[in-house]
């Protein structure tokens, strides 16, 4: 078997596991479980990047894999845990949509994304499902954002969307050029920091991180 075939087989498995981790996030009612699911997902993404680097023989993608590992699987989950500890956020996640309908909607979104991805007829060499899963994560992330009340879980939604994009980029085009990739990582980190500061401000001013309290500006 060539390096490419091994990579292709591994990719299928990893991508399937990423989809599972997305549903773990969607289905959990506890903040820590969600953050852990996100960390796990980022870890898998780092593996995927490494597999792509291995099977295409492009060593600069290893840097991307390493960055993903450090930034998304370690630093960002750490920031989350720290913020929620410092603020004493309740562990339980408050939802607008309950867990079981959430999971059903998630499944529906996967079907829709799969059909959409088929329509583009993209010919991905390493995995046929990368684009479908990438789009599913985009939509599920968006859904997580609008269905959760807490500021922290909304941030988590954005991060899932970003992971989905990363999956798309890395498996469709073997990543953007390195400098662009690093720029995107930098932006993600700054975004999390600024949002983190904002969460502290919201907590200080409103004495809650429930975004349902932010409802004065209308019309």
């Amino acid at each position: 078997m060539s390096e490419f075939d091994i990579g292709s087989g591994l990719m299928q498995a990893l991508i399937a596991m990423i989809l599972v981790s997305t549903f773990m996030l969607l289905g959990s009612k506890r903040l820590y479980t969600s953050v852990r699911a996100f960390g796990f997902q980022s870890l898998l993404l780092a593996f995927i990047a490494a597999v792509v680097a291995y099977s295409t023989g492009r060593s600069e993608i290893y840097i991307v894999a390493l960055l993903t590992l450090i930034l998304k699987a370690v630093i960002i989950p750490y920031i989350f845990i720290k913020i929620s500890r410092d603020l004493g956020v309740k562990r339980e996640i408050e939802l607008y949509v309950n867990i079981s309908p959430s999971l059903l909607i998630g499944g529906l979104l996967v079907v829709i994304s799969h059909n959409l991805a088929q329509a583009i007829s993209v010919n991905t060499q390493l995995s046929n499902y990368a684009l479908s899963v990438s789009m599913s994560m985009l939509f599920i992330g968006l859904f997580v954002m609008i269905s959760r009340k807490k500021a922290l879980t909304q941030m988590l939604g954005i991060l899932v969307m970003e992971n989905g994009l990363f999956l798309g980029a890395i498996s469709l085009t073997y990543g953007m050029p390195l400098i662009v990739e690093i720029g995107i990582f930098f932006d993600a980190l700054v975004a999390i920091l600024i949002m983190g500061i904002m969460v502290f401000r919201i907590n200080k001013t409103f004495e809650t991180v429930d975004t349902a309290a932010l409802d004065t500006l209308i019309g």
Partner: protein
Amino acid sequence: MIRYLLLIPVLTAIFCILARTENQIKTLGLVGSTATMIVGLTIVIDVFRHGTITSWENMLFADAFSAYLILIISLVGFVISVYSMGYMDHEIKHDVIDLKRLKIYYVFYHLGMFSMLLVGVANDLGLWIAIEMTTLFSAPLIVIYTKRSSIEAAWKYLIICSVGITLALFGTILTYYAAVQVLGEGADALSWTNLIGVADQFDPTLMKIAFVFIIVGYGTKAGFTPMHTWLPDAYSEAPAPGTALLSGVLINCAMYGIIRFHTITAKAVGPEFSSNLLIMFGLLSLGIATPFIIMQSDYKRLFAYSSVEHMGIVALGFGFGGPLGTFGALLHMFNHAVTKSFMFFVAGNIRQKYGTKKIDSVTGVVKSMRYTGPMLVLGGLAITGSPPFSIFISEITILTAGLMQAHIIPTALAIMFMIMIFAGFFNHINKMALSTPPEGVTVGDASKWSLGAMIILMVFIVVLGVYIPSQLYEMIMKAVDVVNATGM
């Protein structure tokens, strides 16, 4: 040269962090933005004379379209920093903000300038990074007043624009994928010039989907309806010069991003697809802005919805296309930047005087403020597109283009919305400007710095209404060539 353009705002921001007194910070801010403007104009002239320039191994570049954006950013950015001198002085004196807040304002003002200039000179799909940076750096400007409502506005801004920008990144990745299919791997595949050159070989279905993501994504930042919901909140909560930066300058950067992709998509799938989307979003923005303008009770939100309206008009111009439509849209970007900043300066003066943003509580501005009052009336006329002010010219150009390209129904609808907006808008302006001021409001106007900045803008508003200098005309024509991918 381009490197200096990016370096100056960053250095200014760093010096502002180090500065110790209010005067130091304000002087540094003014010096920094003056330097930015000088370097910016030098680049604009350079591009105008010698064509596209590149720097730093092609990562940075400036063609006529980017130069035009740089012109808007550096010019309006400079005027805003002049206005900030007077405005922030007042806020400090009345203990509205402290030294720390002032510092945050100036640091993020200049970081914002940096990111916006980066939007103009990013020579590839790295444009996305720059636009994301503009969101992050401008969010702190909204929370300068640490009130509940401004925190709410900033959170909405961050969340909604982050989602938008993530969708835009997906569109960017799809475009990159389409390019890689044709050009092969490597950073070169990303430069605008290369992309335009081979865009006709791109997979049409892929580009269609990519453009939908781009227009929804960047459209969120450009204030297209129905993604505009963050905009009135952010604009009404930021301090007046910050709002001027958001509405006058930043909004054009997002528009610039959309139009770059519009050019590529038009070449890949034919002009109808992306043009029709632009016309649709343009009309939708105009249509939704109309009732909100007519029913508005807060004058900063009123001007914010007017930004939604004007971005809709710009989108219509680009959507109608052809040399005339694109020319009108580009001119409108400039005119809107100048006039809207002017209006927010007026709003800032009024808020500092009356201490409220409610239209009903503000009366008799003409009597209580000798200069700001007439400027409110003139600005109100200018922003709603009455002759002989600059916006009238660009609106007429866009509408003519619409008729010439046989987009009869969109043009008719646009005219109808514009007339309704004119009536609604002016009704509010009348209430504010005329009759007698409420008791307790003394006669007296804003500081010389503030009025000076407004006079600079007034010159542009009036002069461009009657006459477009031939240099500016040629400059815009060159940008039109870039946007329409003609003459290459």
